[in-house]
């Protein structure tokens, strides 16, 4: 049930409101998750809430790079991230991921902050953010704290954010080789949820062609965003050949089964995520394969 709405104009005003109402308030950004969830649930259950709109706060929508750190304000839309020349330069796979979200209309309203807080296993911004070792900054009237993106989630649709806290921004270091990254996703939004598998890959390759660092983060196949360390280790220190890439890709499938067990969907999902990862690794290396 909604008691009413509040539209602060500054972060200062917003934090006052959040401190006053805490779990009696609900932040609204693009509303693309919130209104769908409200419609699907019976509305009557739950505590009466004030909706606190953050779309009227210009200081929460920004993309900037300073001293090698990229900062994206929580209220920045997928549309603005996908179109940002800064993001296209420093983390093109994040721009690609945001461009696959929903539809033009959804991207125009949906924000990266909402995507992170909603914490869906299928949230498209999360694999690239995990691969970038991004951190989120939470602020409240009492102060602020930074948390690594992979430590921010407790499970599907669950995060460690506390009542009264705002996700202010997500930030990450500019990668050494922004060109060696890729995001691949299969399945369109019309398709059933099972086919929304995705994967983000970020590599660092030296002049001899050796992979010196690897980050691999799949989407929709684990309960929450995570890096696949075994896959990354398989690549690190190697000059990639077909066998190595295949072995690394297979580790992603193995990890999915280790974490989630064998399910009815496993015979489909496992080979698909392996094949997708293989393609994504090659794509990050600048090689198009099918």
């Amino acid at each position, binding site marked *: 049930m909604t008691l009413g709405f509040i*539209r602060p104009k500054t972060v200062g*005003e917003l934090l006052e409101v959040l401190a006053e109402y805490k779990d009696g308030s609900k932040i609204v950004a693009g509303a693309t998750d919130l209104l*769908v969830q409200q419609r699907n649930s019976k509305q009557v259950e739950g505590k009466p809430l004030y909706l606190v709109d953050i*779309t009227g706060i210009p200081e929460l929508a920004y993309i900037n790079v300073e001293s090698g750190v990229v900062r994206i304000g929580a209220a920045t839309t997928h549309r603005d991230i996908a179109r940002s020349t800064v993001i296209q330069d420093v983390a093109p796979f994040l721009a690609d991921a945001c461009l696959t979200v*929903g539809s*033009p*209309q959804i991207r125009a309203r949906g924000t990266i902050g909402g995507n992170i807080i909603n914490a869906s296993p299928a949230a498209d911004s999360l694999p690239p953010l995990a691969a970038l070792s991004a951190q989120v900054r939470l602020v409240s009237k009492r102060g602020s704290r930074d948390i690594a993106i992979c430590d921010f989630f407790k499970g599907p649709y669950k995060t460690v954010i506390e009542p009264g806290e705002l996700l202010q921004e997500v930030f990450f270091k500019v990668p050494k080789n922004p060109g060696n990254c890729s995001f691949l996703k299969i399945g369109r939004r019309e398709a059933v949820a099972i086919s929304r598998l995705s994967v983000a890959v970020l590599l660092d390759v030296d002049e001899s062609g050796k992979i010196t660092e690897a980050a691999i983060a799949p989407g929709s196949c684990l309960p929450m965003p995570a890096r696949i360390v075994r896959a990354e280790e398989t690549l690190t220190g190697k000059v990639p050949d077909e066998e190595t890439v295949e072995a690394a890709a297979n580790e992603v499938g193995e990890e999915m089964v280790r974490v989630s067990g064998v399910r009815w969907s496993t015979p489909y999902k496992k080979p698909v995520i392996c094949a997708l990862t293989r393609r994504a690794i090659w794509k990050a290396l600048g090689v198009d394969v099918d």
Partner: protein
Amino acid sequence: MKQVDRCKMKLISFTVNGTDVKVEISASDRLIDVLRDKLRLTGTKEGCGIGECGACTVIMNGVPVNSCLVPAFQAEGSVIETVEGLEQSGKLHPLQEAFVDHAAIQCGFCTPGMLMSALALLRENPHPTREEIARAISGNLCRCTGYHQIIEAIEDASMRMDPTE
């Protein structure tokens, strides 16, 4: 610090198709409710109500959005364009003419939303490729036409609107 308003109902103002309007809204109203029920602009359609079909597409501050997913309070101070704003002094907009000429309308339920997505595209990109058109209308479902005629109509409209190229 001055207290921020807590509103149950509020009189908000915004612009619809070039006209300033003032309407009383509640926290649970969506933009589509305000347009259809309060302003009687029933050209904008509600299909799914959950952002999947695009029938409710309007242009908000220059960008196409699903009006079924915009809380009405977010429309305060905004500039909204709906399908009713396309026709000018009794003359159909070139996009509307092209839709008619190409039989891009069957049942017509998707048409208002398609037109608004197409209009936003052509303003930004007066001569889009077919692929760009398909991408621009990817959030608008049509169960009748199979999209072919719609894409042709938009392509043709781009020529009618800016024949220089």
